[in-house]
C-alpha cells in the first residue's frame, strides 16, 4: 500500500507541474493556409530557432498525398510528384532534381517537418503553381486567391467609409472607444499599397492594415461611434456613424419648435406631459423600411419600395416636427440596416412611438399594422423577451393605430387596421405601428407623388400629435 501512496503522490506532482507549465506557456502559433480547395490553420513548432510545420499536414487538404519514413529518409508522394527528404539535410530531391532550401528537414517519428521559410521554394515545385508565404505573419497563399480591397470615403453627411473587396469576406467586427476592428481570420486578405490609409475626415480620419499569427486586421480609427454594415454579397463593408452619433451631431441643427434637448416639453405640449422619461431624445422614431441590398417590393421598373419609404419618412418627419414632435428617421439614405438594429435604436431612445413605413402596389389606400406576436417566449424576471417585447405596449399601439386610421379616413383615404407578423414591430418595447401605403387608384406613380405623400403623412402626424399625451405618458 505504501508503494501505491508514493506512486499517487508522484503522479499528483507531475499533474501539477504540467498544469503550471501549460498555464505559463506562450500562445501556440499557427500557420493559416488559403487555397481554392480550403482555408485551414496548422500548428507551428519551434525547432532550432525557426518555425517548422508538418509538410504532410499542409498537403493533405489539397489532394492525394502519402508519406513514408525509412530510417532517416522520408519519402512523400503528392499525386505524381515524388519528394525525397533526409533528416538534418537542407536539400531534397523533387522528381529526382536536387532542391536546396533554408534550414533543415527534421524527421520526428513519422512526421516530416520543414521550415516555414522553405515553403516558398518547396511548394511551387510540389504543387506546380504559385505560392506566397507571409513568413512574419504566418500566412500561406496557394494559388492566385488573394483578396484585395480599396477604401474610400463616400460623399454625404455624415460621411461613410466604404471598403470594397474583390471577393466576399466575413470578418469578425469589434468596437472599442476610438476604433472599429475588422479581423479576417479565414479570408485571404492582403495589404493595400500603404498599410495606413487616411481619408481627410474628422469623424473617420484613418484606417490601418496589419497581419500577424495568421490573421489580417483592419482597424478603422474614428472620433465618433461607428458601426459596420455588409452589402453586395459580403464584398462591401460600409463604416458609418451610429444613429446615436448622427443624432448627437444633427440635434442642434434640427429645426424644431420644441424646447432644446427636451422631447418632453414640445412647444404645444400641455404641462401634463411631464411623465416622459428623461432619457428620451426623440418622441417619434420613423423607420424607412428596407434599404441597401433589401429593395423591398419592386413597385415598377423605376420605382422601388426602399426609395418610396425614404421619401415618406422625410415627409413624415417634416409633418411631425412642424407639429412640435421631435422625430428621428432611422434610415436617411440607401443603407443596410438590420431589423434588430432598428428595434435597438427605437428601444434605446425610449421613443413614445415607432412608425415603420412600407409601400405596396397591391390594395388601395393605407393599411395600419400592429404586431402579431409570435408564440411563447415569456419575460424572465427583469428581462423582457425580445420576440414579444411589444406585448405590454400592444394596447397602446392598437390605440395609436386606430387614431391614425381615423385621421386617414377623414381625408378620404381607404384604410384598414390589421395585426401583422411584421418585424421589428414585435421587438419594440413602446407603442409601434407599421404603415403600408398603396395608391388609392391604380396609378403606382401616386406613391412617389409629393401631394399624396403629404396627404398621408399629415394625417399620421395629426393623429400622433392628438395622441401625444397618451403616448408620452407611457413608460
Amino acid at each position, binding site marked *: *500500500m505504501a*508503494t*501505491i501512496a508514493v506512486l499517487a503522490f508522484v503522479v499528483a506532482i507531475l499533474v501539477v507541474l504540467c498544469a503550471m507549465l501549460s498555464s505559463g506557456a506562450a500562445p501556440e502559433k499557427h500557420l493559416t493556409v488559403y487555397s481554392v480547395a480550403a482555408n485551414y490553420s496548422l500548428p507551428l513548432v519551434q525547432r532550432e530557432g525557426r518555425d517548422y510545420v508538418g509538410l504532410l499536414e499542409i498537403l493533405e487538404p489539397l489532394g492525394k498525398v502519402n508519406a513514408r519514413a525509412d530510417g532517416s529518409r522520408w519519402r512523400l508522394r503528392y499525386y505524381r510528384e515524388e519528394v525525397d527528404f533526409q533528416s538534418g539535410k537542407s536539400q531534397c530531391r523533387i522528381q529526382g532534381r536536387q532542391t536546396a532550401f533554408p534550414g533543415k528537414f527534421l524527421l520526428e517519428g513519422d512526421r516530416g517537418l520543414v521550415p516555414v521559410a522553405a515553403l516558398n521554394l518547396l511548394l511551387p515545385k510540389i504543387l506546380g503553381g504559385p505560392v506566397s508565404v507571409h513568413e512574419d505573419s504566418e500566412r500561406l497563399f496557394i494559388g492566385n486567391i488573394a483578396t484585395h480591397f480599396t477604401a474610400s470615403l463616400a460623399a454625404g453627411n455624415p460621411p461613410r467609409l466604404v471598403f470594397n473587396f474583390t471577393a466576399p469576406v466575413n470578418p469578425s467586427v469589434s468596437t472599442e472607444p476610438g476604433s472599429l476592428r475588422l479581423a479576417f481570420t479565414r479570408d485571404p486578405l492582403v495589404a493595400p499599397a500603404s498599410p495606413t490609409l487616411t481619408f481627410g475626415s474628422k469623424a473617420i480620419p484613418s484606417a490601418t492594415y496589419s497581419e500577424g499569427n495568421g490573421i489580417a486586421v483592419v482597424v478603422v480609427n474614428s472620433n465618433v461611434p461607428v458601426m459596420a454594415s455588409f452589402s453586395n454579397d459580403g464584398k462591401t463593408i460600409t463604416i458609418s456613424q451610429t444613429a446615436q452619433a448622427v443624432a448627437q451631431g444633427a440635434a442642434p441643427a434640427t429645426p424644431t419648435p420644441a424646447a432644446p434637448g427636451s422631447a418632453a416639453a414640445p412647444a404645444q405640449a400641455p404641462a401634463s406631459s411631464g411623465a416622459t422619461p428623461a432619457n428620451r431624445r426623440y418622441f417619434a422614431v420613423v423607420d424607412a423600411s*428596407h434599404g441597401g441590398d*433589401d429593395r*423591398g*417590393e*419592386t413597385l415598377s421598373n423605376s420605382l422601388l*419600395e426602399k426609395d418610396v419609404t425614404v421619401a415618406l419618412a422625410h415627409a413624415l418627419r417634416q409633418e411631425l416636427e412642424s407639429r412640435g414632435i421631435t422625430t428621428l428617421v432611422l434610415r436617411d439614405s440607401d443603407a443596410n440596416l438590420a431589423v434588430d438594429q432598428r428595434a435597438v435604436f427605437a428601444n434605446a431612445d425610449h421613443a413614445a412611438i415607432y412608425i415603420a413605413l*412600407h409601400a*405596396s*402596389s*397591391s*390594395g388601395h389606400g393605407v*393599411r395600419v*399594422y400592429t404586431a*402579431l*406576436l*409570435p*408564440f*411563447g*417566449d415569456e419575460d424572465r424576471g427583469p428581462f423582457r423577451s425580445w*420576440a414579444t417585447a411589444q406585448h405590454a405596449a400592444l394596447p397602446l399601439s392598437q390605440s395609436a393605430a386606430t387614431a391614425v386610421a381615423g385621421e386617414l379616413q377623414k381625408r378620404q383615404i381607404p384604410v*384598414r*387596421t*390589421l*395585426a*401583422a*407578423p*411584421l*418585424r421589428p414591430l*414585435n421587438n419594440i418595447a413602446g407603442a409601434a405601428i*407599421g404603415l*403600408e401605403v398603396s395608391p388609392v387608384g391604380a396609378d403606382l406613380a401616386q406613391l412617389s407623388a409629393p401631394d399624396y405623400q403629404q396627404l398621408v403623412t399629415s394625417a399620421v402626424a395629426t393623429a400622433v400629435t392628438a395622441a401625444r399625451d397618451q403616448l408620452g405618458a407611457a413608460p
Partner: protein
Amino acid sequence: MSDDPIRVAPYIPRHLVIAFAVMLAAAITLFSYAVRMRNDVTGSPVTANDTRPLAPPVAGPTESVTLFVAHDEDGSLHAEAAQIPMPSGRQQRAEELLSTLLSMYLDKNSPHVLGSGAEIRSVFLIDPGEAVIDVNSAFADTHRSGVLVEELTVASLIHTVSVNTPGIQKVKILVDGKERDTLAGHADLSSFYDVTAVNQLAAQLQPGQ
C-alpha cells in the same frame, strides 16, 4: 546456501488485478458491441435515397373541409367548403388540406396567385400542439413582396390547418427544411406563429371587415 537468484514477487494488490480484469472485460464487450452495431448499420439498405412513396395516393370517400382562401382583390380570407378525399392519418390529412389549397392558388383563375413550382413539401405534427409546414424554395422565392400579400398567404395556410386539425397551438413555417427570416421580405418566418393570434387575424381578414 542456494545459487538460485533471489526472486521478488511483483507487488500488485489483488483488488487492482480484479479491477483491471473487470475493465478489460468491459472494454472487450463494448468493442464487440460497437462492431456489431456498425455492421448492422452498414448492412441495412440506405433509406435516404429511397424515393418510393411512403403512402399510396389518396383515394376513397371524400370529406367536407373548410379552406381559408386568400383573395387579393379585397385583401381578405374567404372560408370555402370543399369535398376532398382525406387519408386517415392526422399528418397526411393536414398535408392533403394544404395541397388542395395550393392547387387553388396555382390555378390560372387563382384569387391569390402563387409562383409556378410552389409546393408544400410536408407538414409535421408534433405533439403537443405543434405543427411545422415545410414549403419548397420556389414557394418563397417566387412569392410577391408586400405586408398584406404575404400575410394573406401565411394566414391562409395556418388557419386552414389549425381549423381542420384540432389541438394545434403553434405553427412554424420552414422553406426547404430551413428557417428563413421572411417569406418575401415582410412576413416573419423566424418564430412560431401563435394559432390563437392567427385566428384573431383571420377574423380581421374576413370579407367586409
